[in-house]
């Protein structure tokens, strides 16, 4: 029989190097065996493409050659990207797209969630209607919005001209200055229901007795919201914002279908630009370098997302 003292336990905990790690793995071998198939699948479908993309980012892939005939060029793809005007334009577009879409989707979603948190007749129906933009196909939505915005015979233009509010239909997606805001509106329309659902779920966790107590103490509606409701929603808000930011950074369908990144690259964001570089221009090397940079950014966002989730768990555990 082994007697485990406080000292030996501490030693085992502090045991440095591989032997300790291997011993732990051995002790948990059954657990590892259960997750092994999933790990193998993940290595094939995630780890290998990531490795190959990183490798490809150091090669030149001229459009007249097959991919296997690529030439090693070191970090030239990264240099070419960082010194190209298009990169900075596309990065600026991506920042505007991501920040504006995330901010407005969240604010609108939160406001709607607050409105729907109250009990009123038809709340269920309204909630169902508001979720529609999020559940319909992004492809279908993009085509519908393309027609709504159409610069010659779009619905908005026809209404404005019909009401005498404009001489000719406004130019939404055929102008370099209006195309990105117009696409952001579509994206917000599609995404705010997600924020709404998340925040509605969060609102249900706010203890009612705290709100009542604050009311008894003379707190007005704004004070109750700011000092009671909002602090309780901090974690769910962080997670929602991070998820929206990652999704927006990765957005492809709406800008690609509605404008293809045009006109004059004015609505190209990173993902659409990467797609065009890879599949339209066959610059697999440059597109891979872009993807590696995007991967690093998303990993950073992912880190904060996991941290936010872990924070939630710790809080939940200590409560």
């Amino acid at each position: 029989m082994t007697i485990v003292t406080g000292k030996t336990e501490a030693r085992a905990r502090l045991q440095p190097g591989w032997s300790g790690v291997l011993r732990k793995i051995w002790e948990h071998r059954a657990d590892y065996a259960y997750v092994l198939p999933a790990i193998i699948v993940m290595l094939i479908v995630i780890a290998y493409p990531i490795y190959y993309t990183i490798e490809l980012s150091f090669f030149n892939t001229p459009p007249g050659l097959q991919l296997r005939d690529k030439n090693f060029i070191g970090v030239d793809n990264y240099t070419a990207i960082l010194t190209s005007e298009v990169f900075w334009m596309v990065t600026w577009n991506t920042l505007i797209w991501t920040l504006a879409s995330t901010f407005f989707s969240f604010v609108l979603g939160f406001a709607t969630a607050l409105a729907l948190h109250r009990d009123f007749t038809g709340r269920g129906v309204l909630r169902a209607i508001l979720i529609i933009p999020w559940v319909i196909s992004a492809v279908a939505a993009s085509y519908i919005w393309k027609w709504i915005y159409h610069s010659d015979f779009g619905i908005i233009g026809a209404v404005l001209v019909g009401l005498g509010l404009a001489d000719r239909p406004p130019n939404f997606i055929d102008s370099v200055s209006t195309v990105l805001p117009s696409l952001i509106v579509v994206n917000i329309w599609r995404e705010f229901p997600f924020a709404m659902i998340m925040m509605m779920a969060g609102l249900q966790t706010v203890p009612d007795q705290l709100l009542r107590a604050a009311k008894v103490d003379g707190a007005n509606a704004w004070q109750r919201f700011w000092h009671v409701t909002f602090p309780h929603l901090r974690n769910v808000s962080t997670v929602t914002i991070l998820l929206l930011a990652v999704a927006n950074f990765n957005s492809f369908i709406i800008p690609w279908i509605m404008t293809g990144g045009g006109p004059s690259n004015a609505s190209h964001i990173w993902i659409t630009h990467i797609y065009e570089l890879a599949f339209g221009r066959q610059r697999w090397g440059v597109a891979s370098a872009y993807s590696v940079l995007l991967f690093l950014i998303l990993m950073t966002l992912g880190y904060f997302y996991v941290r936010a989730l872990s924070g939630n768990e710790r809080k939940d555990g200590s409560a």
Partner: protein
Amino acid sequence: MTRITLGGAVLRGTVSTALMASLMSASALGAPPVDLSKWSPEYVRSIAGTQDFDTAADCAKVTPLDYKGRLTFWYQGVFEGDPDLLRQYYKDFFETFRKTYPNIQLEEQALTYNDLLDKFRTALLGNAAPMAVRLQILGGTEFASKGYLQPLKPEDVGYSTEDFWPGAMKAVTWEGVTYGIPTNNETMAFIWNADIFKRAGLDPDKAPATWDDVVKYSKQIHDKLGIAGYGLVARKNAGNTPYRFMPQLWAYGGGVFDEATANPTYKKIELDSPQSKAALQASYDMYVRDKSVPVSALTNQQADNQPLFLAGQLGMMISHPSDYNVMLDLQKKATGTDKDKAQTVIDNMRYGLIPTGPDGKRAVVFGGSNIHILKPEYVEGGKVDEPAAKAIICMWTSPEWSLKMAYAGSNPGNLNGFKTKWMKERLDNIKFLDVTTSMLPYGIPFPALPQSPEIMNIIVPDMLQNALTGAMTVDQAADDAAKKVKDLMGGGL
């Protein structure tokens, strides 16, 4: 299948003898089945219906009709801008193929013009391509130069190289080797609405003679009637854009390289020449200065211009003869007063030759599609069933099917198609066909270079968009495009 008449049999015998002779000594005895030097609407009418062909019998010599095999096949199929008539012919073709070769298990997949290249490139990277593919004329050289395609010439499927347009054969040839067979070749025409012309104070029966006239007419239509004059298309990654802008560029004496000359070398870049800039300036004048074309031109395709034209909101456009049939299809779907309005437009639809440049030069894109066989190592499963692939290629490029599959919108790749009875029938059924066949001799193929898809689908539309949005001046946009082509040709990143 075709029934052979006595006269047809005699003719066929004569042609077969000639074909055999040409196969024996192609360079000495090979001659096109039609006299291209006599090409005119009258000549096309005179040869239509003069010869019968037995497709099944011809293809049986290439692949026996009882051959057992399996074939995966991708093709650029019909899309939203095509008439229903063409949809029916595509359906008929695959049904006939299955009846003719009942033991070949055919797995076909139709893709649209704008999706096919991307999907095919991706499949090739994963060695998951189909055994045979029908690609747009622009794509063949790219894949041949990369070594994905097997050498394939008309003689491999029972025809002669001379049976096809010389310009079309250039597009399937890379470094002296032929890698495919043309299925159809097309040239577009100029279409206008005579009623709109009349109301705008223009001669309703006269197409604009020059591109400068197009600019002038477009402005006049817009100023007088408040509708769009010319159907400009400048969307990126859409085949419609180069098909409409390149004729204008060539007519002004410009080009990407020297592709508009008789023997192009593709060495000198011409996109920044004064002539190319003049062509771009004409588009700028219509879009920015006169605002006489659809504002949506930057995100539009031709399929968006069709309803505008049918609604009487567009005066002129460049398109296929099939647009007449598309208008008929759309009119059938209209209701109430819209139906009558659409009928008025159809009654007033006129076709003419594409306008010339300032020096009288007339040009049009020599378009179409080609069919290819892949090398086994790039095909899913690593095997290519060559007899099965040759069977479908023989059938599609036959005089009968190369005509039927191009019935409304294009022209047969196999020149013998012009001699069939279906051509005669087509001349009676498809209005304005004369005009587009008359445009064929003015056809200029896209540069036969692997870089062509990027130049035509991305660089040229980018140049247009940069100028039309004001992101750059006309000069800057042309210079920028020329630099991009130079970088591309130099293998830049």
